């Protein structure tokens, strides 16, 4: 394939996107930067605070610093746990799906359904479903003699949020893996059969390498979504009990809109965003390298 032509006039076609996203991204980020270096005493009365908010935030011995590092650890643990469950489960389900036939369409629709439900309704569904008095899930667990109570027990609250995330988003991993699997030509499977490859060998040497690109994408999307999880814990546990399920976004909204503590909130926003951009860049680099090697 020939190289793409070099043409700076193409910028004119990108311009509308640039305008929209500049308006939505740069302006608000500048406001945040502004708050993060100043201290608002009274309305419209600002003092230069230099890097004060940042020093507090990144120093775990201050109140806000301890709070931030706790929320960060909690959130990272949650993201890793969710990925460890969702990726293997998603691949397994994708392998079980029929490759062709009339049932494929309905299966895909059912799989995508949880992802089409507004976040707060997902919260409501599970709020009801996990109650011991009116919810099947809660009643079943209590019936088994477990001490299950989302609002009282930290372990229950945590596992419920993980179960919700797995329920809500494993279908994304399934759909991505399924798209990757369908792109593998039948000839590959025939060759494997002729060589007498076991099911496991077929998976490890044919399917998994072909899935690499979509899996990187799945991990990227899932990691980012779990890293910014907000509505589900907000509706189901409210961040509690105590602060057991207070993840980064919940904490940020509490500080910014609850306590109107603008300086701390702004510094936290920037550090939070910087972490996501760095992680995103790492994934993006891996993905573009896979693309350029032609591993699709």
């Amino acid at each position, binding site marked *: 394939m020939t190289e793409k032509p070099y043409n700076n006039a193409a910028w004119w*076609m990108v311009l509308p996107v640039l305008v929209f*996203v500049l308006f939505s991204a740069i302006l608000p980020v500048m*406001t945040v930067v502004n708050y993060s270096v100043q201290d608002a005493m009274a309305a419209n009365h600002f003092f230069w605070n230099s890097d004060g908010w940042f020093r507090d935030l990144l120093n775990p011995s201050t109140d806000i610093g301890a709070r931030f590092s706790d929320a960060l650890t909690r959130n990272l643990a949650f993201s890793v746990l969710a990925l460890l469950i969702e990726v293997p489960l998603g691949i397994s389900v994708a392998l079980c799906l029929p490759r062709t036939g009339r049932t494929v369409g309905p299966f895909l629709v059912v799989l995508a359904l949880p992802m089409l439900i507004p976040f707060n*309704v997902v919260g409501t569904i599970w709020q009801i479903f996990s109650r011991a008095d009116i919810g*099947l899930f809660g009643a079943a667990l209590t019936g088994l003699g477990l001490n299950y109570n989302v609002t009282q027990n930290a372990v229950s609250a945590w596992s419920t949020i993980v179960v919700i995330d797995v329920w809500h988003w494993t279908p994304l991993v399934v759909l991505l893996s399924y798209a990757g699997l*369908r792109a593998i030509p039948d000839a590959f499977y025939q060759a494997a059969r002729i060589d007498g490859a076991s099911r496991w060998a077929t998976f490890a040497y044919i399917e998994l390498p072909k899935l690499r690109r979509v899996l990187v994408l799945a991990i990227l999307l899932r990691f980012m979504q779990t890293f910014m999880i907000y509505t589900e814990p907000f509706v189901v546990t409210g961040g509690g009990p105590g602060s057991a399920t207070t993840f980064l976004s919940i904490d940020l909204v509490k500080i910014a809109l609850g306590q109107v503590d603008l300086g701390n909130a702004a510094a936290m926003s920037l550090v939070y965003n910087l972490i996501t951009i760095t992680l995103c860049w790492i994934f993006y680099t891996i993905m573009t390298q896979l693309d350029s090697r032609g591993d699709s």
Partner: protein
Amino acid sequence: MKRVPLPRLALGVYMVALMLPIYWLVILSLRSNEDIMSQLALWPHHPTLAKYIAIFNDPTWVHAFGISLSYVAINTVISVCVALPAAYAFNRYRFVGDKHMFFWLLSNLMAPTAIFAMPFFNLYYALGLFDTVWAVALAHCLFNVPVAVWILEGFINGVPREIDETAAIDGYSFPRFFIKIFLPLIANGIGVTAFFCFMFSWIEQLLATTLTSSNALPFAAVMRRSYSAAGMDWALLSAAGVLTMIPGALVIWFVRNHIAKGFALGRV
């Protein structure tokens, strides 16, 4: 009896587990509150549509449903129209800063929305758009424009460049080529992109509720409001929840054969 192969069985179990919470919501919406509180039941013994009728007869709910649909529609149209030429440019040309620009778009898609809640509130308040559908429609462009560019770029990648060149030789001007020849070729991709914009705008609630207060309250915010009023009306809440699933369930049928490709951002 025929033996069911293990993968089929596992798939069946997974599908049932996936549907169970939704099924539970549906049956609660068909029962009365007294019935719900008195016993657990796997199916409604005395099904009633009372709560649905109550929602349809309440102008607040109906209005909010219209609000939600209108900002989603505005946002989808804007996102797709703006993203089309950009996706074409990214796929067909190299230009100064193209890779950085593409990554920057992606990073907006990944930015936690909670960060934008407070500054967006200030911004749209200053612009006088606060509490209108436009505020939400524009705010959702933050992630939907990048999503649209990504997915469309993948689909455009599947159209051979020779087609562009042949059209140019045949004397088509660029705009005519783009509208008459190119757009029909990626019609599937446009459909899938519109679906994804619809979906992401429909499910997002943090910005939608932050940027509205009374006139343009989205459906989900009205749901939250009904929470505190005189205890929990579980049946009403369930019925409202079921209604929010209907638009998604309707549109997904049209793109069912392309959703997997869409989630892979157009490239598999």
